[in-house]
């Protein structure tokens, strides 16, 4: 564990010197904060219509009000809460990944290109420790950014949305999505990027591979939610979290197996 934290601390210390790397993550975070407000508050305000005036959201509002924390909400508040909760998946997935993907993609190949990998591998550091440090170290900035965005989001909902909406968001479903399922999904994508980083000769390839593995499922999930194909209930989120935890563990083992330190040392140029 000490070796993992040592390497993570090193990676984070290096990142402090490259704040520009987080600009895409910050912009994504801002976009994921702003866009549900556009739908739930800004557009209805300028259109002079309330969301509850449209029958399009009736089913969504009724489903949302089945949740204990949302029963007291007005129809308008329930629709807003529905939109704000479902938009969270973008924030959780995209902010974390865009905040961390380039870090993960550079993690191994960046060391190789800087010729710092061989001295690192010459220490007692095990492959599992190297990979764990690289994945978690890459995830930390993205997760912190996502948590910050979530805090701003809640405050903004409290200020601009109907009374009680922000409190209704603080349920098991949201919290498990933000603090368990989301990070686990992000770890999965970042693991893929780190392993890709240990297998390819170009960090851009690793970035593309990692991004596509996380962005596509998140986009599909979001679309499915809105068209009613999937309703992310608490039990589904817990089941997904469990599946993601298992997938992460399996992927770590695969990552260790496919990490070919000999090829990295002898064939990469």
């Amino acid at each position, binding site marked *: 564990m*000490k*070796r993992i*934290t*040592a*390497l993570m*601390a*090193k990676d984070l*210390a*290096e990142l402090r*010197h*490259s704040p520009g790397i987080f600009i895409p993550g910050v912009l994504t975070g801002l976009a994921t904060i702003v866009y549900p407000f556009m739908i739930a508050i800004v557009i209805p305000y300028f259109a002079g219509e309330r969301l509850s005036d449209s029958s399009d959201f009736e089913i969504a509002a009724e489903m949302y009000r089945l949740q204990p924390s949302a029963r007291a909400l007005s129809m308008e508040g329930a629709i807003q809460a529905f939109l704000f909760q479902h938009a969270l998946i973008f924030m959780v997935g995209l902010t974390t990944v865009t905040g961390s993907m380039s870090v993960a993609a550079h993690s191994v190949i960046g060391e190789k290109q*800087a*010729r*710092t*990998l*061989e*001295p*690192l*591998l*010459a*220490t*007692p*550091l*095990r492959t599992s420790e190297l990979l764990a440090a690289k994945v978690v170290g890459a995830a930390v900035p993205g997760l912190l950014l996502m948590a910050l965005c979530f805090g701003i989001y809640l405050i903004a909902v409290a200020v601009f949305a109907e009374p009680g909406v922000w409190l209704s968001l603080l349920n098991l479903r949201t919290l498990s999505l933000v603090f368990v399922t989301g990070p686990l999904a992000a770890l999965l994508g970042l693991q893929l990027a780190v392993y890709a980083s240990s297998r390819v000769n170009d960090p851009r390839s690793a970035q593309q591979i990692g991004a596509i593995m996380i962005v596509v499922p998140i986009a599909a999930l979001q679309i499915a939610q809105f068209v009613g194909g999937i309703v992310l209930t608490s039990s589904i989120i817990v089941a997904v979290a469990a599946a993601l935890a298992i997938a992460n563990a399996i992927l770590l083992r695969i990552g260790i197996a496919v990490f070919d*330190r*000999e090829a990295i*040392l*002898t064939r990469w140029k």
Partner: protein
Amino acid sequence: MAGVLKASHLTRRFGERIAVDDVSFDLAPGEIFALLGPNGAGKTTTLRMLAGLIEPSSGSVVLNGETVTPDTSPRLRGQIGFLTEAPGLWDRLTTRQNLTVYARLHGLADPGRAVDAALDLFDIRDRAGDPAAQLSKGLKQRVALARTLLHEPRIVLLDEPTAGLDPESARDTRALILRLRDERRAIVLSTHNLDEVERVADRVAVLRSKLVALDTPARLRARLFGARVRVAVAGAANSYEQVLHAAGVRDVRFDGNTMSIALDATDGQTPGLVRALVQAGADIVSVTPEEQPLEDVYLRLLEESPA
């Protein structure tokens, strides 16, 4: 003397290509063992196998009585200090941060103290707060050496430690290597710098995938060129030709007041020859061993062992 490192029949193939072919040697504490060879001769591959970074295709490496395997190598790497060909410092981190990461990776009890000691030992404390990117090549190499020795390994592998350094930095590095020998550490030195080998190495292995030769520089010279001694006398040297023949010398060259005498062995014969000359009335001005440059030895060995 018990060896701390033993390489037995080390072979490493990369596909069809054999990078290292059946190389064996051992290393004692306090010994500097130089690996010489042209580019692509397998020096770095050999070092990587010794360091447990890559596995041999066949053969074995034993460190302090324990065979290096995938299971043991992480632990055994802690007993080795490996200076890689490039300094490999994280440019954005300071000298102190670079060293601290390695102190923690090696699990040192007090990383801060170990780093302070290394900064003092390598005289780089005044640059401790500078990012590695701002250091000169010589300073970077010094920091890399400090990193290599941070955990006080008993076995030190150095891959071209003075390559690209200015003469002063190279001299300091050689002094450090000699100091490590005085501390009874076993050192494997891979280099192209024959002068460096001449100055520090106890034994030399010439590699060209296979082990072409392995011996002390003096014995290699004697084997290839024979041992010779140059004697300067007052007056004409060739007047002592009969004396030398009577003393058993078969090969002697004269040049004015000096004579170059071929010896049968690398040592032991010279005092008898000097005594015979003195008894014959020679006024001896100087007696110096005649040494063929190591470069000649190296090139001759490679000529005799074509790729």
